[in-house]
Each structure stands twice: as C-alpha cells, then as structure tokens.
C-alpha cells in the first residue's frame, strides 16, 4: 500500500487558529459555554455534554473564540479559537505523583479527570460512548498498535514516553475492578523497548486485529465483559500528562500519509491544528480527498478543516472522478482488491488506494466476502438484511453490538453496499433507544 508515513517527527510551530470539533465526538449533545468573541485560556471549558454536565470539553488554546460554526439542526461543527500572540493564558490543575495516586480514592481520581476535561479519552464498549463514571468497568483495554492505514506508529509516539505510559496504566488500574489489558502487535513490542515490556497481550493479523472491540471479542469469557472500557495509547498519554503535570495537554503526535500526501511523516502538532499546517494545499491538484483519521474510519475534510479530538492522522488520497476505460476487462496489475480476481494479487509492489467506488450499487449476491473479513465473525450480509427488516432481536443475536465499525465489510463488498455505515447508524439508534429507556 502506497503512502505509509516515515518515522521522522517534525515539531511544527503553534498555528494561529485552533479548533475543537464537537460534532466529531460521537454520541454527545454539546451545550456551548462560550460565545463568539469570548476570551479563553488553555483549559477553560468550551462546551459540556447535555446528557451529563460533568463531561466538559476544555479549550486546547488560549486566545479568543473567533467563530462557532453550526451545521444542520444547530449541530456545533467547530469552535475556532484565534490563538493569542505570545504567551497563552492557561488554567492549572493539581499535580499528582505516584504516591498521591496510590493513596487516592477512585471517586477522587474520577473527579480529577472530569475536571481536567479529559473524560473523553475513556470510552465504553459496545457503543464507544463516554462511560458512566459511576459504573466500574470489568476491564480496560489499551491499544497501542496502529494497523489501520495510516496512523502514527507506536514506536514514534511512545518514544521516551514509557514512564508516562506506566503512570497512565496505574491510573486505569484504579478505575477498574478487573484487568488493564495493554496490547500491540509483535513487531511494535520489539520496537517499543521498556513500553513493550508492559504489554499484556500481543495481537496477530491485519487490521482491525488491534481494535479494542476485536481484542475483547477474542478474550472475553462472559457477557458482563461486553461493557469494558477502552483508551487508545495516544490518548492515555494525554491523560497521564494532565494528572502528572497538572496542565492541559496541548500537543500530540500526528501522522500524515496517503498516496497523494506531498510529505509523508509524523508531526508534533497542537491539538485541533488546522489541516493546512500538515500538508501544503499548494502542492496538491485539488481533487484529492483529505481524510482525518484512517482510510477506513476517518472523516472527509478539506484544506480548511481541523484535526478532531480523537483523530491522530491525516491521510490524503486521490479522489478523481474520471471513468476507467475498459475497467471490466482490465487484468488489474495495479488494482488493489481483497478478491483474487485481479493480477494485483501477484504484484509485490505497494498499490495506490484511491476513493473510487469501482462499481455500482447492486443487490447482495452472497459472495460472503464480508463474512470472511469480519473481525468479530458476524455475518454482515445477514445483519444488514435484519436491519433493513427491522428485526431488532435478530440483528442483536447475530452480534451487531460486537461490530467494531472497522469498515472492512463495506470495503470488500462487490455490490458496493454501505454495510458498515448501516451498522453504525443502527448501533447509534439502538444506543439512543437504550439511553431513552434508562431515563
């Protein structure tokens, strides 16, 4: 696959504008706490979640709120902050060391994380929503590997961070009654050094074997463990930084990749950095797609967009719309495919992945490619039909809540059915229904 980022890291200067994107955080219902023109400091609350007001989202920059962009039905798309010249104002939080952590009560620790505005790094399966602080999770999963194309390599973002990671794991140990599972693949274990020694599990196989949901599917022993929490390795570093140093984390390592990216490497940038800082639009033709996040799960943005809270990479891939002449009869030496119907199967060179659909929407022909690639052994074609028929019992039985939203089923489908988007929508609808029932 063409477009893997190099391991080099460049530290980029602070940009003029930094944004927080509320509608890229799944499930939450934001309530704004600032208005356009308000001055903010790093760590000042920008918005909270209407469902639970303790879930605060703090400003990643100091300056003034320049613009609040609304989307359809008043969804908050972006809160753009014009960064103050020179020193930014900053709100400090209490420091915590190893002894302090060991002596601390769980409730106190949770309070600190909530106040520090980093509750969002924790997410609860199966819906991947912010967890309920009162609930004690049966297990917390921490994934380091980055098998989705292309995310920052763990050996890059964890370089010299083993102590911080260890501290983060201790924090998680306080939060759960069960085990903290730290997993990665064998290759990164060898590269990670001291952090590699902390791993509890090593995953095998291609993407999405490193997804916490997929790992949980393979290690869970009973239904209670379905409600495990998870944190990504990069987010855990942010959490550890907040508690250890008492300051809101403002920087993280971001990877820039994809076949059309002008420079493919890692960058050390501000949270919520503008995308134009990561790739020069002047060196692109304008038909490329800017994907924030991995190719399979990220969202499409543009040169005017910003990095989301959860996303740690920018992928730029070709997205031209020229029809392929004689595509049907092309032996396909350079065409990537899961199936064996193209000669690319025998091609050892890395292949270019673009955004073309390569086909038209057709009815399912039961080729079972989706069932072959599903990491949690669902039968995606059957789940899809059950969702269309609104057979709730049936699709839950078939394992819709095990779905890790990896997107592979939709990727391989020759009928170009939007399987994973349908699953994501059905999961959201079911989550809303459950939340409604609880109220």
């Amino acid at each position, binding site marked *: 696959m063409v477009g893997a980022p190099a391991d080099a890291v460049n530290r980029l200067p602070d940009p003029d504008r930094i944004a927080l994107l509320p509608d890229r955080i799944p499930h939450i219902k934001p309530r704004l706490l600032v208005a356009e023109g308000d001055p903010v400091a790093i760590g000042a609350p920008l918005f909270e979640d209407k469902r639970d007001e303790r879930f605060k989202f703090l400003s990643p920059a100091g300056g003034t709120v320049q613009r609040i962009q609304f989307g359809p039905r008043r969804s908050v798309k972006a809160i753009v902050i014009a960064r103050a010249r020179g020193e930014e104002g900053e709100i400090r939080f209490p420091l915590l060391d190893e002894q302090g952590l060991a002596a601390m009560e769980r409730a106190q620790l949770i309070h600190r994380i909530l106040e520090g505005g980093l509750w969002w790094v924790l997410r609860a399966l199966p819906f991947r929503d912010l967890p309920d602080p009162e609930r004690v999770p049966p297990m917390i999963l921490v994934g380091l590997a980055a098998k989705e194309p292309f995310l920052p390599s763990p050996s890059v973002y964890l370089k010299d961070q083993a102590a911080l990671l260890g501290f983060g794991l201790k924090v998680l140990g306080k939060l759960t009654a069960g085990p903290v599972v730290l997993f990665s693949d064998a290759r990164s274990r060898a590269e990670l050094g001291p952090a590699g020694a902390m791993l509890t599990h090593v995953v095998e196989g291609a993407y999405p074997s490193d997804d916490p949901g997929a790992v949980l599917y393979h290690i869970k022993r009973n*239904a209670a463990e379905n409600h495990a929490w998870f944190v990504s390795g990069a987010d855990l570093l942010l959490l550890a930084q907040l508690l250890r140093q008492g300051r809101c984390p403002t920087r993280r390592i971001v990877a820039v990749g994809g076949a059309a990216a002008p420079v493919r490497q890692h960058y050390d940038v501000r949270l919520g950095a503008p995308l134009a800082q990561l790739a020069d639009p002047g060196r692109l033709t304008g038909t490329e797609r800017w994907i924030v996040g991995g190719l399979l799960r990220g969202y499409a943005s543009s040169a005017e967009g910003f990095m989301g809270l959860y996303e740690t990479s920018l992928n730029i891939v070709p997205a031209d719309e020229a*029809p392929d002449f004689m595509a049907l009869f092309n032996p396909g030496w350079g065409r990537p495919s899961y199936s064996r119907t193209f000669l690319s199967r025998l091609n050892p060179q890395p292949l270019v992945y673009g955004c073309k659909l390569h086909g*038209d929407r057709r009815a399912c022909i039961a080729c079972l490619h989706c069932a072959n690639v599903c990491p949690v052994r669902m039968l995606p074609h059957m789940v899809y039909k059950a969702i269309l028929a609104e057979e709730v019992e049936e699709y839950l039985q078939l*394992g819709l809540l095990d779905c890790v939203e990896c997107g592979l089923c939709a990727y391989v489908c020759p009928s170009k059915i939007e399987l994973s988007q349908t699953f994501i929508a059905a999961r959201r609808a079911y989550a809303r229904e459950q939340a409604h029932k609880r109220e």
Partner: protein
Amino acid sequence: MNPIHKFFLNQHKHFQPGRPLARLAPFFESMERVFFGPGTVTGQSPHPRDSLSVQRYMMLVILMLLPCLFFGMYNVGLQAFKAAGQPPSFWPMLLFGAKTVLPLVIISYLFGFGWEIVFSAIRKHPISEGVFVTSMLFPLILPPTTPWWQAALGISFGVVIGKEVFGGTGRNFLNPALTGRAFLYFAYPVQMSGDAVWTAVYKTGVQAVDAVSAATPLAVIPATPAGGMAEKTLAAAGYDLGTLFLGFYPDSIGASSTLLCLIGAVVLILLGVASYRIIVGDILGILAMGYLLNLLAGPDSAPYYSLNPWYHLLVGGSAFGIAFMTTDPVSAPHTHGARYVYGFLIGILTVLIRVFNPAYPEGIMLAILFMNVFAPLLDQVAVGLQVRRRIPNV
C-alpha cells in the same frame, strides 16, 4: 477525448430524469459499464473500496462458460455428422454446430436481457449482470434440437418467474436458468427428453431417415442386461471413460465436457468466484451415494446400482451442474458451513433421482432446484449454531 466516451456522454442526456428514455436509464448504465468503470467516488468512510464489482464477478463466470459454448458448437456438429453418416471434418461440423447453437444463444440473450430491461424500467432496479450469466447458462443446458420458440419461452419463464417476480437478482431463491430448463422439461417433454432430441439433424431429407441418433449415456445405462456391467454397456455404445470425460457424446449443448467444466471450476475456485465448499460437497455427495448403492447392489437390482460412482460425475451434465449451477451464490445457502451440506445433499439427490426414478434421468437439475428451496432452511440451522457459539452481547 476517447470517442466511445464521447458517444456515451452524448447519449447520456436522453436517459436523464424527465427525458423520454428516463425509464431505460438502467439499460444505459449497463451498456456504459461494458466500456467504462464508474467514475463515482465514495461519499463516506470507508474511503477506499475494493476494485471488484459485480460486473467483473459475473463477467468471469461468462468467460469460463465460453469454452463450453465453443466445444458445444463443435460437438453438436460432430454428433449430427455421425448420426447422418457423414465423414467428420472440422470446419463444416463447427459451422453446422454454430448454425444450430448460436440462434439459441441469441434468443436467450434477447429474451433474458429484454425481460431484465422491462423489469428494471418498471420496478426501477438496476440491471443486474446476473442475467448475462443466466442467458449464457440457459442455452448450454438445452438439447440442440430445441425449437426456437421454446427457448424463448424457457428463458422468459426462468427470468420472470424464477427471478424477477421475487425482486430480481439477489432475491431469487431458485437458479433462473435451471427454472427455465425445468419448465421446458415438464411442459414439453417430447422436445426435451428421449433419445432423438440430443442430436441435431444434419440435412433433412433422404439421409435423415437413415440417420440413427445415438442414445445418451444416461439412457444407455438402464438398458444394461441383468447381471451385466453398466460400464461395459456404456463402452459398447461407444462411451468409454475418455469419451465421457472429454464430452464427445450427444447431450445438452454445452454440458457434456467434464474436462472443460473441471477447468472452469478450478479457475473459478482459484479466482474466488465459485465456492469450493459447494463443489467439494457435490462431489463427495455423488461419490458417497454412488458407493452406498454399489454396496446395496444385488444380482437382480437395476444396473444403475452397480455403476462405478465416478461415472455419475461424468454423465448427465453433472460436471456442468456442479461447476456452474450449484455454485450460483444467490440460490445457494448464504453461510459457509451450510454450503458444504447443500453440496453434499445435491450430490446424494442427484444419484437418488437417477437411480430410483428412471423417468427423470436429469437428476442434477432437479436436485439443484430442490436444494435451492431448502437453502434457507440450511442457513437457518447454520446461523442458529453460530449464534449459539457467540457470547451474547445485547
């Protein structure tokens, strides 16, 4: 700009909504796809998509059917010349075969594709490329003497009743080509069974009276004298193992050559288009039932009992059915495990129908249709087992 691209761009406007040909937009799309892959890009994640489309999937099946078609043309000519006592000569035989076979293929495509266009315009579904496979399969399993109007009727029945009334490709539970074939078989038994229909008549007139059409292997076997070996009877009729394997005997147009079906099946399995699970199931089923009947065979049981099970794979279109009919993914079960069972049961039924019901020697056709109907039941069991293995998550 590519002139073909220009042509399609120019014609596209006539098929836009509101224009007179708007209803035929699916037809336009299917024609454009022959030359151009779509330029559409994904709207949402996952952003890249597999290069494989249903068009290519179906095109590969048609590609593997072409050798059967060409062999069929040659063999039809060969059998007709033999029956008419003509000296065999390659080009005239191929020409005669083509003259017999191609009209049936063209009729099949005209009517099959025609009905698909009609339904796509009325039901507003895209034209599925499955119909091109159906229209190729159908003439290959017809006797070469099939009247043209019957071919048209058969493919129409297959496409309309076997598929479109259930919603088109992907929603049909029967194999449309076989449905059409079975319809003709039961509606017009005179033209579809017996010894005479499998050989096209070369030069009607005086010679035709003398012409002796040979019986098909399926019809030869029951004629074995009591206590005799079915294999020997076959060999005496000119059907030794090699002839049967290569397919030089009177049979349906394209279904006689086990060799070509074997090549087709192997290629389709390697390409991942045909399910090897079904094929393995089929073969095991036929062999298992064949051996079982061998064990039960007594001195006065019907000659079919003692037939070497491998012969079951060679005669009566078994190989064609296994390679191209049972592997139709839509009418087969939609789970991997159930596909083994489905294939196995087809194999067993094929042999059972041939042996115990001499009135219907075409066991594989009926066996496949029968198991098509049971495929959802097999799925139900397979899915139930799979659900039971999961740790529930609700």
